[in-house]
């Protein structure tokens, strides 16, 4: 066997992102120089993205087990048991950098990629969410990025016919040069029909399906390498373009084939396409794979093995089929007019062997490629603690309701209707709660139960105190699921951070993971899948630490879920949870005083659990008729949101022992919920019995929000402020 001799220069090695030590390791494993194709394969497999080399040590500390977890991290997506033989499969993934370069296509292909992670495991995708972070609204690029990203998410999700049911949008100057586009998909499958990616059965065929391979998104390093310069224009790496039409066909074809007993293993081609899919399948099965690259369906002539292996063309899958099932599979894919090609076979060799035009382009041992990837224990320093801002440190506010009007209309709290109306949130006819509430609720088709789904993270808390911020992000998703009446089951995460080689950034990562892990443990709410995106920096300036959390819970009967809107006039409003008036790190402090200071509100995980369990029971017992958790903007904003959603006002009275009125209204104390009820006495008695702080704070009714001691403001006026900002800003007049 002969391999082409590439003469790899130190520059080429560096362009592929290897440190000298890492390259020495490659040479040791191979005991010879790699070919260009082999170098490319090592480079992507050992990249931060595929190898998790900076993060693995810490990710391992997260709780991933619970009796209802069917499959935790490590597969394409996490799988949980939701009863009656049903499983929910979900994951979140980032497409930050591509979305900054080309917002429409970057975001669209992000949605496409996460959908594939979910249906590759046998699930029909039933819901999409998106967690978005943009730079400051008056940055010259922000509007363009928002409009492209939102259109791209809608353009893809709407076409494939999966409802986009929720998400979040934040603005902060730290994202000016590095936006975050995190997409989450949730799917449903039968628990005994889950598909995994480990190769099995030497001699079985390796099959390629989906779109053709082009030169999309190939590692930038190709450009400079000597081997690839004959036709530099044609070989330039290009931005990936999504084709949701093909994706929709791929979903249907894969699900149809999954009904047959044909698939041994299946894996989507995500980042580093054919390389990571084939290496991971072989690696998990402890086997080898031989691929004949000339059989790969190609979009352009003259592609080299390097390009074929590193292409990130979208809408492709790799499968290993049971012997004798090719004809069935081929018939299904031809019906859906998708490419189908047998491109290789599973071997016992333990090697990845690539053949093209009668020559061997690569011959690598799979084990070391996967297991001997470098792992780093990067130095880190803990984020210094910030001083606590006492209520007395903040001047009293003479007009708290004017402040409330300002808050509900500020960029971080204004209605996101402009965003979610560009999404089809009702296709599939199972969306019980659309965007605009605490969590989306999607019914399991044909049944009365449903999933509650949310994404949350408060990056300013994570920046101020990563451990509290990590706890808070997990707790907030748990709270949002609870607030609709769901039992939270598990989370997926998307860890977006700056350069981990900087000890302060690594400290943020470590702190957030620690806090998240504590919250997961305390709430019985394990991590079942996730994604890490590091190096989110421009010109040395890092983003805010942003561990976006996607939470999933179950509601046994979707008819029993509640919403944020006041259901009627004349009901009592009860606040659950303790209110000290924590102003540090609050939106109020930032929007009204321009201060991004202070320690964030502490998260008492025992109180979270106690209060949340109590609220969920109120909902399921029919005692709570509406519910909303208190998060950004505190109690004041939560009440205003309930009022605006219904058009009904309320009269509030500060209970005994309340802090100063501005701190009472805008403090961001955690573990709190507002519920409406027809029977406040029963709620309060129950709270005493459960050891949960609760206070009757008002009554619904009228067209105004009145706060004793602060005056009144009409709900219409609040709503105008709330609905105005986003469309006005996008139109260029805010």
């Amino acid at each position, binding site marked *: 066997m002969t391999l082409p001799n590439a003469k790899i220069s130190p520059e080429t090695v560096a362009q592929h992102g290897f440190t000298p030590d890492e390259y020495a390791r490659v040479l040791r494993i191979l005991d010879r120089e790699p070919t260009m194709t082999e170098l490319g394969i090592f480079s992507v497999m050992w990249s931060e993205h595929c190898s998790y080399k900076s993060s693995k040590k810490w990710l391992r500390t997260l709780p991933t087990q619970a009796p209802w977890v069917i499959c935790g991290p490590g597969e394409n997506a996490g799988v949980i048991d939701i009863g009656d033989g049903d499983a929910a499969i979900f994951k979140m993934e980032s497409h930050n950098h591509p979305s900054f370069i080309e917002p429409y296509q970057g975001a669209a292909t992000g949605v496409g990629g996460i959908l594939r992670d979910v249906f590759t495991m046998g699930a029909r995708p039933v819901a999409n969410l998106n967690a978005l972070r943009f730079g400051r609204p008056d940055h010259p690029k922000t509007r363009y990025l928002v409009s492209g990203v939102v259109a791209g998410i809608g353009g893809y999700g709407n076409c494939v016919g999966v409802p986009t049911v929720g998400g979040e949008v934040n603005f902060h100057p730290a994202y000016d040069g590095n936006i975050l586009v995190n997409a989450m998909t949730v799917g449903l499958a039968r628990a005994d029909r889950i598909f995994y990616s480990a190769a099995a059965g030497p001699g079985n065929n390796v099959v390629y399906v989906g779109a053709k391979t082009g030169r999309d998104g190939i590692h930038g390093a190709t450009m400079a390498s000597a081997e690839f310069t004959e036709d530099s224009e044609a070989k330039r790496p290009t931005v990936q*373009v999504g084709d949701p*039409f093909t994706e929709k066909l791929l979903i249907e074809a894969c699900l149809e084939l999954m009904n047959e007993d044909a698939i041994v293993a299946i894996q989507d081609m995500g980042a580093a396409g054919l390389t990571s899919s084939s290496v991971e399948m072989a690696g998990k099965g402890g086997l080898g794979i031989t691929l004949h690259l000339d059989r790969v369906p190609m979009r352009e002539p003259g592609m080299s093995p390097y390009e074929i292996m590193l292409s990130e063309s*979208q809408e492709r899958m790799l499968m290993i089929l049971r012997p004798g099932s090719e004809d069935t599979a081929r018939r299904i894919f031809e019906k859906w007019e998708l490419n189908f090609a047998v491109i290789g076979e599973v071997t016992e060799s333990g090697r990845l062997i690539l053949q093209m035009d009668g020559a061997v382009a690569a011959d690598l041992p799979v084990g070391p490629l996967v297991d001997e990837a470098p792992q780093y224990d990067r130095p880190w320093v803990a984020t210094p603690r910030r001083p606590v801002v006492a209520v007395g440190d903040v001047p009293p506010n003479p007009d708290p309701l004017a402040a409330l009007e300002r808050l509900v209309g500020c960029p971080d709290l204004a209605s996101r209707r402009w965003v979610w109306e560009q999404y089809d949130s009702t296709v599939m006819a199972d969306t019980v709660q659309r965007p605009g509430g605490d969590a989306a609720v999607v019914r399991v088709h044909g049944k009365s139960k449903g999933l509650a789904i949310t994404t949350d993270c408060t990056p300013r808390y994570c920046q101020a105190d990563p451990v509290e911020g990590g706890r808070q992000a997990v707790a907030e998703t748990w709270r949002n699921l609870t607030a609709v009446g769901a039992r939270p089951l598990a989370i997926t995460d998307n860890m977006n951070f700056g350069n981990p080689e900087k000890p302060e950034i690594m400290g943020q990562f470590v702190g957030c993971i620690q806090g998240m892990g504590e919250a997961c443990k305390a709430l019985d709410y394990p991590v079942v899948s996730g994604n890490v995106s590091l190096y989110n920096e421009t010109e040395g300036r890092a983003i805010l630490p942003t561990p976006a959390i996607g939470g999933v819970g179950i509601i046994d009967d979707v008819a029993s879920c509640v919403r944020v809107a006041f259901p009627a006039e004349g009901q009592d409003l009860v606040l659950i949870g303790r209110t000290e008036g924590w102003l540090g790190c609050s939106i109020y402090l930032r929007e009204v005083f321009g201060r991004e200071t202070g320690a964030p509100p502490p998260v008492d995980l025992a109180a979270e659990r106690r209060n949340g369990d109590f609220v969920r029971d109120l909902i399921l017992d029919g005692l709570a008729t509406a519910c909303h958790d208190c998060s950004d903007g505190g109690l004041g904003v939560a009440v205003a949101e309930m009022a605006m959603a219904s058009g009904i006002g309320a009269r509030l009275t500060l209970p005994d022992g309340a802090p100063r009125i501005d701190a009472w209204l805008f403090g961001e104390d955690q573990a709190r919920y507002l519920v409406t009820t027809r029977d406040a006495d029963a709620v309060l008695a129950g709270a005493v019995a459960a050891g949960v702080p609760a206070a009757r704070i008002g009554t619904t009714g009228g067209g105004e929000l009145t706060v004793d001691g602060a005056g009144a403001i009409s709900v219409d006026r609040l709503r105008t402020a709330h609905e105005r900002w986003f469309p006005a800003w996008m139109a260029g007049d805010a």
Partner: protein
Amino acid sequence: MKARVHVTLKSGVLDPQGTAIQGALAHLGFEGVQGVRQGKLIELDLAESDPVRGRAVVEEMCRRLLANTVIENYAIEVVP
């Protein structure tokens, strides 16, 4: 004066629309269609009457708005 701008996808960039049109033409029984690419045609009506200055302005419009040069090429035709 009038100007016409042709915006086309760069070669190598996937063109799902073109591919779908090609498939549809084949289904309709049109044979021998070896490739289809879809682009945009933008017709501008300008107050400017000098073709040289006009072209320069349209060039600028293309770079700033009409084409997305990450994935698209453009060509300008001035119709005096």
